[in-house]
């Protein structure tokens, strides 16, 4: 056990707008944590800063005991921290297998993958996310739900310790959301620490044992979903004053 991610006084500003305002929290190894907040709360920005795509204005991030503040994104991935994107990214003109191959060819991924053969290892990953029958197809023709599975597969190729999933449920039909939920749950039970964001609360609340809530860049609550859902400040953030949760 132990703290796998420690965020301290993190602040990120964009030309006058403070997207992340003095956020601090800790995540233990093996935890399953949600990050909620209305649109524009700063969830993606926090993920961008933690994963190295953006540099914070102040504050620090420690991953697995190491200070990773301001480190280059690919270096952070090779330490075991990988994130997926809200707007699905893929290598559009390569096969799904090649898409996964890229992650498996990262220094960290290669350590494991080369024992089995890169293609074989990628095929196993495609199988575990339920896409093996589409291995030779390019992402351009896939439905949205499959692309989200592909993203998770690509993240798995790097052999992550901590997985940051940015809005993995957005834009999914009910069946697709169920698929993704099962996938994420099985990843967690395999030992991967998972940190998930969402702004539709119902799907997240039933999934995670702990939720951090933020609003306008600031931390507002941290605890079991039921508590956070009944927190006055959280309610005000989502519903304005005088609202209640259904």
């Amino acid at each position, binding site marked *: 056990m132990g703290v796998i991610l420690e965020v301290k006084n993190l602040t990120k500003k964009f030309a006058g707008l403070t997207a992340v305002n003095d956020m601090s929290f800790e995540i233990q190894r093996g935890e399953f944590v949600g990050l909620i907040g209305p649109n524009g709360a700063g969830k993606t920005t926090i993920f961008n800063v933690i994963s190295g*795509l953006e540099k914070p204005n102040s504050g620090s991030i420690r991953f697995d005991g190491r200070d990773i503040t301001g480190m280059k994104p*690919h270096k952070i991935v090779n330490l075991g921290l990988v*994130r997926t994107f809200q707007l699905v*990214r*893929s290598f559009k003109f390569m096969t799904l297998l090649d898409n996964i191959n*890229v*992650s498996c*060819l*990262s220094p960290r991924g290669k350590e494991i993958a080369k024992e089995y053969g890169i293609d074989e290892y990628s095929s196993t990953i495609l199988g575990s996310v339920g896409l093996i029958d589409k291995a030779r197809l390019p992402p351009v023709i896939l439905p949205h739900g499959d692309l989200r599975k592909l993203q998770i597969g690509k993240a798995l190729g790097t052999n992550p310790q901590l997985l940051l999933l940015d809005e993995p449920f957005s834009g999914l039909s009910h069946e697709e959301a169920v698929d993704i939920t099962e996938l994420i749950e099985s990843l967690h039970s395999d030992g991967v620490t998972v940190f998930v964001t969402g702004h539709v609360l119902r799907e997240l609340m039933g999934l995670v044992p702990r939720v951090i809530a933020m609003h306008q860049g600031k931390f507002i609550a941290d605890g079991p979903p039921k508590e956070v859902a009944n927190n006055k400040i959280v309610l005000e953030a989502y519903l304005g004053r005088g609202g209640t949760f259904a």
Partner: protein
Amino acid sequence: MKKRKDLKTVLNDFKSYLRFWIKTFRGQVTVLCLIGLAILPFITTNTYIIGIFNTFMIYTIFAASWDFLAGYVGQVSFGHAIFLGVSAYVTAFTVKFFLFPWWFALILGAFFAVLFGLIVGVPSLRLKGPYLALGTLSMSLILYELFKMSSLGLLWEATFPGTELFGTTGIGQIIIFTDIPQIFYIVIFIIMCVVVVFLTHFVKSNTGTILKAIRDDETGAKASGINTTKYKVIAFMISGFIAGIAGGLFTFRHTGVNPGIFQPLYSFYAIIMAALGGIATISGSALGAFIFVFLGEILRLLGDNPNITGTIGGFVEPIFVFSIILIIIIRFAEHGLLKPALERLKSLWDLILGR
């Protein structure tokens, strides 16, 4: 537990790939063209014809190096003339003044081209899209002007008496090339084949997959743990080395070198040839170079014709014609002519065979 593929497996894979490839229409057309090219020096001794084919093959190498960088790694360079020029000068001078054997001078030239390319090009790799193009273009322009500067020329003459910075001639002392032009032809032919085969298979390797990922989505590649800067530099070096080989061969072909080799025009030639044949199809460079050289020669002959002067004379200016062709290609055949041409050829062939 599977180990990395050893040499024997790689060769076997290649052999079975060849057996498959030779059965495809494209493979057969390629083999026919290669045989045609290979026997040319034995069915004619006309130096003019051999010379044009030499230029064609050298340009194929040059265009292929550009196509690799632009089509497979997504780095569109507008300064490929830098590699051509640096290598041409180094090759020329080491052969003329240090009397190095030609193959050593060639490799040395390519090596210096890469070195120079790294110094001026790597900063440009931080730029993307149009800015990368501008960066590489301006670097090559600077070099062109530098080599033309007369004050620098005086300094040069003091260090290397009897020559000018503006170039040198007399590389014709590579006797084996001048006495038996067929040998030069065969040498270029072999180099061209090696380069094209290497590049075609390199892009299918694991490193090639990474490079293509950088082309498709560089941020996504970084998010997959790839050090994209490292790979872009590697690709740049490979592309530069091959372009440098073309530069050295260019020197031998023209038995001399001058600042003109740094003209951005040569960079544009590479782009035109690669685009004509098809970006991201290494062998398309051959088709593009072929069209470019032969059409260019026809235009030159037309331009030299005393009956064609004035405004009409302007219309047969090669760069003008090729710019128009490029615009037409982009509009109607943006993936180049190689694939459509092969398709048309195949349907024609099927028709002839009554399928």
